[in-house]
């Protein structure tokens, strides 16, 4: 019998094995494995959920039950850059809705839609923990604080024109950000390579491309 994830990349398979070994109960690895499956398939697909189910020994239905509970698992294809605009209370007070409108306009999409060139998806999200730097935006979960509607348009244009391989929060903050919640400290070398949170040895990339 072959491994259910034989079609995954070598890094993906290695990461999956690490995750399975990490927890006292394999089932705990469902959520991180779904991120890995997202990277492998572009989003959470039925096939991906079945593979994860087989890896941890539960039914695919149970995996889907988890995968649909959390909003960060995308069940439809999203653009290369997932732009998440916060409109929760602090951002709402300081213009988050305008930023969202501007980003949608620049990308030419409705909220939740993906631009025709498949590069940018703009979504509305609830609080992303940057209330001190409201309004806040994330690109592939890398944060930018103090965004204005005009900067949001610039951000979308920049993403489309430069199509960065790795999304780096510090770079984006410098280009399109404003007031921050607090000092960020030393620049972060890691960034996101896909619309999946960049965490762990597979899924983020060191600066230097």
């Amino acid at each position, binding site marked *: *019998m072959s491994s259910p994830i034989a079609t995954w990349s070598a890094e993906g398979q290695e990461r999956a094995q690490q995750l399975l070994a990490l927890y006292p109960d394999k089932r705990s690895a469902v959520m991180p494995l779904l991120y890995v499956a997202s990277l492998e398939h572009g989003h959470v697909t039925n096939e991906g959920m079945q593979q994860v189910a087989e890896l941890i020994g539960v039914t695919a*239905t*149970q995996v*889907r039950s988890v995968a649909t*509970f*959390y909003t960060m698992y995308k069940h439809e294809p999203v653009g290369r850059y997932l732009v998440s605009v916060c409109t929760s209370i602090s951002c709402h007070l300081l213009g988050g809705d305008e930023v969202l409108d501007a980003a949608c306009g620049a990308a030419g999409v409705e909220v939740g839609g993906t631009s025709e060139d498949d590069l940018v998806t703009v979504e509305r999200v609830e609080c992303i923990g940057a209330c001190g730097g409201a309004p806040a935006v994330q690109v592939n979960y890398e944060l930018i604080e103090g965004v204005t509607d005009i900067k949001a348009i610039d951000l979308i244009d920049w993403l489309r024109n430069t199509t960065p391989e790795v999304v780096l929060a510090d770079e984006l903050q410098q280009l399109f950000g404003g007031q921050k919640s607090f000092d960020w400290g030393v620049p972060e070398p890691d960034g996101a390579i896909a619309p999946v949170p960049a965490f762990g040895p597979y899924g983020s990339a060191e600066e230097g491309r």
Partner: protein
Amino acid sequence: MSDTTTVSITINGVDHEVEAGQRLITAAEKVGEYIPRFCHHDKLEPVGKCRMCLVEVEGPRGKQLVPSCTMIVNDGMVVDTESEVVEKAQEGVLEFLLINHPLDCPICDKGGECPLQDQTMAYGPGESRFIEPKRTYEKPIPISDVVLLDRERCVLCDRCVRVADDIAGDPLITFNDRGNHVQILTFPNEPFSSYFSGNTVQVCPVGALTSVDYRFRARPWDLEVTPTVAAHDTVQSTAEIHTSRGKIVRVYAAENDHLNDGWLSDRDRFSFAANHAPDRIVSPKRRVDGSFEDVSWPEALNTIAERLGGIAPERVGAIGGAHNTNEEAYALGKFLREVVGTNNIDAQLGDGFNAQLAAAVTPRATVDDVESAGAILVWGPDLKETLPVLYLKVRKAVKNGATLVVASPWRTGLDSIATSVVRYRAGSGQEVLRKLAQGSAHEDAAAALTTGPVVTLFGRASLSEDPRLAESVAAYGRTLPDARLMPLLTRSNVFGALDMGLAPDLLPGRVGIEAGSAGLDAMGMLGAAAEGALDVLFLVGSDPVRDCPDPALAAKALDQADFVVAIDAFVTDSSAHADVILPAALWGEVDGTMTNLEGRVQTVSAAFPPRGQAQSLLEIVRDLAAIMGSGDILPKDTDTASSSLANEAPAYAGVSRESIFFESDGTGVVVPTGAGTQPLGYIPTDAAVPVVTDRFTLHFAPSLYDDGVITRHAESIAGLVPDVTVRISPRDASVLAVSDGASVVIDDFLTLPVTIDADVAQGSVVVPFNQVATKGLIAASAVSVEPVRGDV
């Protein structure tokens, strides 16, 4: 558990003494204070999700609203179930449940028996204040061949999820999405293929889960309910037949805590369609020039009587009777032994084991013993495939803390929860058993069988297994601490039939026949008929060509016999050979009693008269005996049959339809076994079973949905037969040089695709029994397996 101390609680100002440890909602109900509920179900773990059962309980911080389904009663608890706050909460919850409910009650199958309707009437607000658009979903979507899902109606009570996951162990239906969009769903393109899916329909408190069979067939107010048992297997779950205008429209489980806990398998639940199958035999038929023509009952019976006249009794035999009621079986036995004068009677088809062991093994376990066992050994047929409700009981026992040992040549449904699995090569069971008993191997299995009471469930794992192995397993089981034994025969009322003496060496009431006068068993009769030593053969609802281990012999026997009488509801591969076919009444059309695998006698009832001219077996043999001039020997109806039986069979004394009804609260009466009280108390011995050492040994085991006559005629489950493949171990596959999906030839005639399966013991070949694709395969221990070359 045995500790039955009580606590005193106050409900609505009235003091009550209630059993400690139970949930408040249950305690209140027992003292007559009904608290409304949706998610609460007696047989399921509490989840407290619907919030319908909120009551006020006095606490350190004053009265607080708490869900009564999760609250355990404690001494001095002061509860208010009718306060203003409670009533407001109930109204609020019902309004919340209804705002997105489609209110399509007029066309909803649940309308009329719907807890949501009833509780809205009793506790709900008069009208809704909701004017926003309702949540809509596509409706309904089929989630399996037998169940439909309407998410708009769902109140998300979690009952179906808990039944599928906690009870059945098939978590194939779960919640999806979040918040206001939560919905019950199965995985896309993966059906809810549980053997127990129908239970979700029965427990659903709204019309969200409905069955394909019942959909739009009737409304609850025009149903007639007939209590009976689900007679498809020997568990004989307590059930109800629901009829509308003379047709069965659905079968529901009844709650019997000693047996099925209110659950049924889908086969039990959905096989009723066979009663109304268009190709049922509804009038007597006689073979004329090779084809059947309809004849009248007198003509048919006269033909048989004439043929029986002047024939030596030992040249007459009868196979079958396992599908009939005890009274019918009793009458059949009396007819054969006293009117015809033969002991050639067998309710088994060579697929079981020693009839005396099955009928009178001691000490015999009850299903309650299984539930409360310290350890369980299952060495026999796959319970999930053959006795699904007993499988649920074993699961429950394991959940209660019992250890479980499963011995089987191939993966069974219980393996995933077993403490230890003994995987042995088909044909080598005896050797493995010896080692287990001696402690020279399988130490972990032996270690798991040390906490008493140990219940041994023994039977024949496959048709190709030596029937004497069951004897040895039982003998071993008897040596375990506080041992109880449960014989596993699987066919319908076979235990009742054996108790009624439908065996070559048994008389009614578990009385053995004196040595030397035993008749032929089923295989013996078939062999004799094939050699011309038997002239007249009665097939009583049996299909030996499909169901016995040697189909070729059965076919030859039916050809060679001079005269074959089939008492059957369908033309089968066997009854097609008959000279006369008599239309038999089926389950649901006959009154009587049945006996299950623990010896529990329950009543079965006719929901409507037999189809067409069909008659009960009792009526058939009674009329036949009358024509033969011995009408006074046989009982004239069910009641006289049971009183006559009681006189003759001490074990069944006092067990009548009436006494069961009045004494058992609908749960049935267990006929006691054990030396001293019984004429026969069978003590199993270690049998001498030869070990088969051929290159390949066959494991020829039944699955739940097979090509049996009832399954075949029940439209909704007929399509559920599994894909038929030959399973072999990876080692054998590499030796044979076949890959997954390649074809092999078994015994030089049956070509089937191969599935390589790590759960198959090396040297064994697993083939499903009684499927269209495996028709004709002889259940011998050793088989030949050759790869088909040249296919891709």
